[in-house]
């Protein structure tokens, strides 16, 4: 009997994601992939999965799953979600073994917008155009091109157990928001007066509730264009900050259309894309401009940290406050959960 993950409930916007669909932008295909790819990488790495293994991306809508037909090792990384294994409260980044019949609940917590549930083994889905990532707008990939819902069953090929008991995952490899998101100006900063660029960098923006996997809408004082708000459509990067006629910027995220016709004042650097994704609607965000060299250096540091052995700390059973438990164990009980480095 095959091992499956049964979805007991799923909020809107919970989808299968991997590192995205590469090579099809020329055909108008959206790249998709994890909103916080660094968190996805860490979750897969803890379990010894390849980096590109498909995971469940959990939105603020939350998710409840149960193992069927056998035990499955799981890891959850990303944001600060409230996790429960049956009745037991867990820290937001954990690895565990889900025994048949026991239930893992992932709910919106104190912070963060996206969590990644990786399973030890491979979620049995056929890649579409080279990826298992779901693009709901074009109904491609994932499970039937749609979000997960109660009653869905995901077969897990080569299911393995995770750690015995539960273990907290050290997530210091991930970028945390420290008062600003780093951007490189451009590619169309010449479509804005200097004052507009200064205003963009000086403003404390607020993330609009209209934000989704396609774009994060920013609320604040409108920015003035110097040369009109239309350009001949060209390609858009993940993290490009587009300013349409309203003057209110949009940060284009994983489900962005592959091309767009508005000037882009700046682009979030690769190292901060996950951090940007974890900002919640209603929260404030500032941007700071960095050079190409700084962006590349930040990228190098992030990938170096992600390549290091992932440290996990076994959690002792009991009702001690999670934060205290984490504090104690991360200092005293590091063990190396790393598997051979990915290729």
């Amino acid at each position, binding site marked *: 009997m095959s091992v499956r993950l049964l979805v007991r409930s799923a909020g809107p916007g919970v989808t299968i994601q991997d590192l995205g669909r590469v090579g099809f932008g*020329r055909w*108008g295909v*959206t790249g998709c992939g994890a909103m916080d790819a660094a968190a996805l990488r860490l979750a897969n790495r803890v379990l010894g999965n390849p980096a590109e293994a498909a995971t469940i991306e959990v939105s603020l809508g939350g998710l409840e799953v149960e193992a069927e037909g056998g035990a499955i090792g799981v890891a959850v990384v990303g944001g600060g979600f409230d996790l429960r294994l049956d009745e037991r409260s867990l820290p937001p980044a954990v690895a565990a073994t889900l025994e048949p019949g026991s239930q893992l609940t992932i709910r919106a917590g104190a912070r963060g917008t996206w969590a990644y549930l990786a399973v030890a083994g491979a979620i049995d889905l056929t890649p579409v155009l080279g990826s298992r990532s779901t693009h709901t707008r074009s109904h491609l990939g994932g499970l039937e091109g749609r979000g997960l819902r109660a009653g869905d069953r995901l077969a897990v090929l080569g299911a393995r157990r995770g750690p015995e008991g539960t273990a907290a995952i050290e997530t210091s490899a991930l970028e945390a928001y420290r008062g600003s998101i780093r951007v490189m100006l451009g590619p169309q900063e010449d479509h804005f007066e200097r004052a507009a660029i200064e205003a963009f960098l000086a403003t404390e923006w607020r993330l609009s509730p209209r934000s989704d996997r396609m774009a994060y809408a920013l609320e604040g004082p409108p920015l003035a264009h110097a040369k009109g708000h239309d350009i001949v459509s060209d390609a858009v990067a993940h993290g490009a900050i587009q300013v349409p006629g309203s003057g209110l910027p949009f940060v284009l995220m994983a489900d962005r259309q592959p091309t767009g016709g508005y000037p882009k004042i700046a682009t979030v650097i690769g190292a901060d894309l996950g951090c940007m994704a974890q900002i919640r609607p209603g929260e404030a965000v500032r941007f700071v401009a960095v050079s190409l060299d700084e962006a590349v250096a930040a990228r190098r540091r992030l990938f170096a940290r992600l390549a290091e052995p992932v440290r996990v700390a076994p959690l002792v059973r009991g009702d001690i406050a999670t934060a205290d438990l984490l504090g104690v164990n991360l200092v005293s009980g590091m063990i190396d959960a790393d598997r051979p480095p990915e290729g």
Partner: protein
Amino acid sequence: MVPLRFLDSGEGLLVVEFGSAIDAGLNERVLALDAALTRAAIAGVIETTPTFRSLAVAYEPLVIERERLVARILELAAEAEVATRPSRAWTFPCSFEAPHGEDLAEVAGRLGLAPARLIEHLCAWPLRVHMYGFSPGFAYLGGLPAELAASRRASPRAAHPADAVMIAGGMAAIAPLPMPTGWWVVGRTPEKVFAPGRDPAFLVAVGDTIRFEAIDAATFAALAARAAAGEPVARVEAAR
């Protein structure tokens, strides 16, 4: 020729800009560089996306530095032969009859044309696929007769059916996936420009031409049934 501009969108996307207009000549240069970059298979180059007037080069800056990539692109652009890129000429059947030409009468009225004249203009000569964008397989077709330069709708209409043939903004488009649109839906082709399970998933390359051939709704139904069974219903020949 205007020198190339190199624009950065973050540390992993280099936009090579040939100009700022929608122009078949500029687009040919974009495609020539695209083909040259594909052939060169430079380590660290992840994906190239040709658009009307620029080529976006996604790269891994930890594998190839921007400066080296720019130098390689300048070499390749100097060598790239615009004329040698192969292209194909497609003939696409298209029904403009009810229920397919949903917006035909309305947009023809705006253009001051009888619907039959609009169809004649649209089928008059081959149109060129300038780029894909917006959604999977959404093909922007240039070279439309000036008589068909309808502006876009002020606000988007409800989702069009699959494989809609549309006009707006001086261009035509084929849109495989139903989406709300600011374009005018004038017809529908039974051919599948995009079929995710087929090899190739995408039928028509950028730079290929498409000539529309008017068919009636009954022929559409027959051809659509054949297309659904996986049979090609558009005709193709090598153009040069």
